[in-house]
């Protein structure tokens, strides 16, 4: 059996600083995040937002890449199905990631680590609530090495 590459376990004694990568669709969720900003709502700084033209632009490769690089949670936020600026974009997101989320859970990844949310441009508070709840559930899960690439050293 091939000798597996020895994985370095990041010492978990440092205080657990979860990192959540959020893919936000430019027309709805990104605007929702802006609205959360303009209304001075508060959500944790662990959330980091990547702008994508539409939620259908996010590929499972990016999600797994984020987990590999040490993200503890990934959210894909898009317009409510039917409201997509590109009319059918989020219907495909919904199908693709329903299957992908089931597949991830089947392989043993907690559902809380990977979420999809429909957040429109008018729902600033929903954006903040979703992000706060996501962080709570990730904190409850605690640090975990799943899907993580041991060779990628994060600046702690």
């Amino acid at each position, binding site marked *: 059996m091939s000798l597996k*590459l020895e*994985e370095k376990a990041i010492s978990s004694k440092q205080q657990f600083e979860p990192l959540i990568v959020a893919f936000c669709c430019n027309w709805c969720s990104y605007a929702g995040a802006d609205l959360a900003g303009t209304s001075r709502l508060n959500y944790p700084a662990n959330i980091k937002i990547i702008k994508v033209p539409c939620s259908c632009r996010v590929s499972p490769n990016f999600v797994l890449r984020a987990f590999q690089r040490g993200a503890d949670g990934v959210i894909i936020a898009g317009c409510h*199905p039917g409201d997509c600026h590109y009319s059918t974009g989020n*219907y*495909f997101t919904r*199908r693709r990631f*329903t299957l992908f989320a089931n597949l991830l859970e089947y*392989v043993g990844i907690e559902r809380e680590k990977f979420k*999809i949310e429909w957040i*429109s441009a008018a729902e600033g508070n929903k954006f903040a609530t979703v992000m706060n709840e996501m962080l709570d559930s990730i904190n409850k899960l605690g640090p975990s090495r799943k899907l993580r690439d041991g060779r990628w050293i994060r600046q702690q």
Partner: protein
Amino acid sequence: MDKTTVRMQQIALQTLANGEVDVILGWKKGDEWYDSYPVVINDINETAELIWDAFCVNNLSKYLITELKKNLRIGVFLKGCDSLAFNQLVIDNRIDSERVVIFGLPCPGMIDPQKVKHAGLNKGLLKVERTGDKIVFITKEGVKEYIGRSFDYDKCLNCRCPNPVVSKYMLSDAVTRTDEEQYFPDVTEIEKMPLEARYDYWTKQFSKCIKCYACRNICPLCSCETCVFDNIAAGVSSKADADCEQQFFHIIRAYHVAGRCVDCGECSRVCPVGIPLEKLNRKIIKDINQLYGDYTADTDIAKSPPLGTYKVDDFDPFDGSKQGGKK
């Protein structure tokens, strides 16, 4: 199956002779009892060497992709699961079905040489003949007979499509399989496992992978010109043997055949380290059947694949749990 072999050779001879096809994709028998290997023949006297026995497990529809580029019209022998893959390749625009003549072979089930070896019957074994579920082992010492399917591949045991779904000529009468359709027992069994146990199970399985990509190359639907895993420039994954790379490869490959996989089980058969890959694909098939209707990716060519289309009122597991949504 010998009767069918004769019919096979006749029809091959006839179609090659009258120019209905330019080349024929079939199987030939090698020296050993288990060795039926795929061949491409174009001259008439080679048709006599064609064989249809219990070891013609290879799916010939994948060869059509490369062969159709070189030849005009091709005759191909397809079993039930092969024809499913054929239809899916047509849906994927990988083969042009007009230029293919299909000889349908209802399949009683293929024998797994490993199981014969484990049963110790391979000592001095010369030939294996199968008619229906009666299997005759002809060895140097003598002849042994078995009734039943204990030597068949696991995938053949729960085969749900023994008879070709599309064919121009049907070489023998249909095979009836009566066992009722259990609803993905292997998948539900894993789903019942607790989450951590599932993660350990799959990580252990994936860590066995040596990245030989046999599962990808045997799969009739994994037929990209340059696979994203071969294309270092894509920067998607590397051949390093780290846990996360293995998980990435297997999850993404299962996702790439999602909605197209015809559950022919070839990936698990050829895996040299025995990873139960079909359990990944069957999980997605089970989900698609439950959520978007039984998609049988194979029979209806006009229907677009599940991930290629949508319904406005699709099941939406992500909706409405948070307040602040639309009133």
